[in-house]
């Protein structure tokens, strides 16, 4: 992976090898296509169509079901405006890690995607933005070289074209199967985020359940504005690792979005159905149009 011109953020039509098996991808997501679904949190049985109508949020207890990256883009980006970038980038087994090729293959099959992040440009209620959405269905959203590269290119494209960037995170952290090269993605993406920031541009992170490890310790926590979905687990070290280290049980809501809000690490917890409007509002408040108006007023 080298060079960093905006040309590298080539816009290509998605060329997913599983594209024509769309039925599989559509049928796979976390919510089975059955008539009734049991909420894993409140255990209430919900009519599947009610859940779909409610942005896949449990109407009884407000549990936000995990959703696939494509669905997230549909929910967030205005219809017909999304152009995907780097859809054909594929991970390779650079350090000959045992069974990594097999893991990649099954991740592609089960997610219907080529990697753990989808990137591109689109509009949110008319506001043009670069967007990256991570996918928990691809190796639990772990960050490999291609994940880091796509996110870095997204930042670089946003910087070169003076656009805001919105990143939805969901990740188990660094991808062990890529060893140190996965760790290097933390530095690489952080550097790209810094350049975007130094150019005076807006970066909004939306943390979703779960965001942990190397992603938390890099671009997830680097947004100018950090939002989260309700009840999302947000951590550097996951609860099990901490329990093993300190040998005691953790309090129930430890590392929840609400806990981080209380501790001062995120700006707001936003309901899924309100997210699109919130993002559009924040982008608009940072757009040049608004800023120019302010300047004009001052001149008068």
């Amino acid at each position, binding site marked *: 992976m080298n060079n960093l011109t905006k040309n590298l953020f080539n816009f290509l039509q998605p060329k997913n090898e599983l594209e024509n098996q769309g039925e599989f991808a559509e049928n796979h997501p976390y919510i089975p296509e059955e008539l009734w679904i049991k909420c894993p949190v409140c255990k209430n049985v919900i009519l599947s169509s009610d859940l779909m109508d409610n942005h896949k949020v449990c109407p009884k207890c407000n549990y936000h079901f995990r959703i696939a990256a494509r669905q997230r883009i549909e929910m967030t980006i205005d219809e017909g405006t999304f152009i995907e970038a780097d859809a054909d980038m594929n991970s390779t087994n650079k350090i000959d890690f045992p069974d990594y090729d097999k893991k990649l293959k099954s991740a592609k099959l089960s997610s219907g995607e080529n990697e753990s992040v989808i990137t591109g440009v689109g509009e949110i209620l008319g506001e043009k933005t670069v967007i990256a959405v991570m996918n928990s269905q691809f190796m639990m959203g772990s960050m490999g070289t291609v994940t880091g590269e796509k996110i870095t290119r997204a930042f670089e494209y946003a910087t070169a074209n003076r656009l805001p960037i919105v990143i939805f995170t969901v990740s188990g952290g*660094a991808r062990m199967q890529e*060893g140190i*090269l996965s760790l290097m993605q*933390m530095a690489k993406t952080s550097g790209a985020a810094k350049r975007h*920031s130094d150019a005076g541009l807006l970066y909004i992170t939306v943390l979703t359940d779960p965001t942990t490890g190397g992603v938390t*310790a890099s671009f997830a926590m680097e947004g100018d504005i950090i939002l989260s979905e309700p009840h999302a687990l947000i951590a*550097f070290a996951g609860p099990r690792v*901490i329990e093993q280290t300190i040998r005691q049980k953790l309090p129930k809501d430890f590392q929840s979005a609400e806990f981080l809000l209380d501790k001062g690490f995120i700006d707001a917890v936003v309901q899924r159905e309100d997210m699109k409007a919130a993002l559009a509002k924040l982008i608009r408040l940072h757009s040049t149009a608004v800023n120019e108006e302010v300047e004009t007023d001052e001149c008068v």
Partner: protein
Amino acid sequence: MSAYDHVTAARANDRPTSIDYITRMFGDSFFELHGDRRFADDKAVIGGIAELEGMPVTVIGLEKGRDLKERMQRNFGSAHPEGYRKALRLMKQAEKFHRPVICFVDTSGAYCGIGAEERGQGQAIAENLMEMMTLRTPVLSILIGEGGSGGALALAVADEVWMLENAIYSVISPEGCASILWKDPGKTAEASECLKLTAQDLFKLGVIERIIREPKDIESKLVDSLKKLIADTLRKKSAIDPDKLIDMRYNRFRKF
């Protein structure tokens, strides 16, 4: 030597730690500075100003401690967020006064505990990665023992990264890798091979610029040559225009 032999050597209790290198290289010129100005002074991170061949430098080290009592005080070299914030404060200070920064890295990883999470371990590391990338002064990081994942990287976003022959640098501990991969933390030796964590492997991958010959003990003459190498390197880096320096640093990491 197998990869696992390197792991064992990197963790050996009698291995020189950051304080040993700092004392031996900078002697009385080292003036320790404490605290992150926000919450506490994390003893897993030692930092201060020193003189290197007439050149003022900022020195920061992850410190494991040299006996049991000290190891407990220093949390075995596993820093809390305030440790990373102290390091960043000292780096920003170095930038202000145009001093190069030398980081000694030796940690099994950032601490995984309640307080660390409450005070934003992830945020603290993330901020270091971001800010170090554009620090307008030369940064040199040397892995002297264990380089445990994000907790090590938070002091290794540098213009050059060097490793002692027996140091290791990895995204996850071999034990952690073995328990995920084979549900058997005992298969540490196999996992060590898979992770490509030795200095030789990392040099081949382009992750480090130099492998440093291992001094038998801290009194070794090899430490003198290391000191000279550090001084020469930092003098060269200091002559580079800061804009160019941070461009080169960005591209150093951009290639992965």
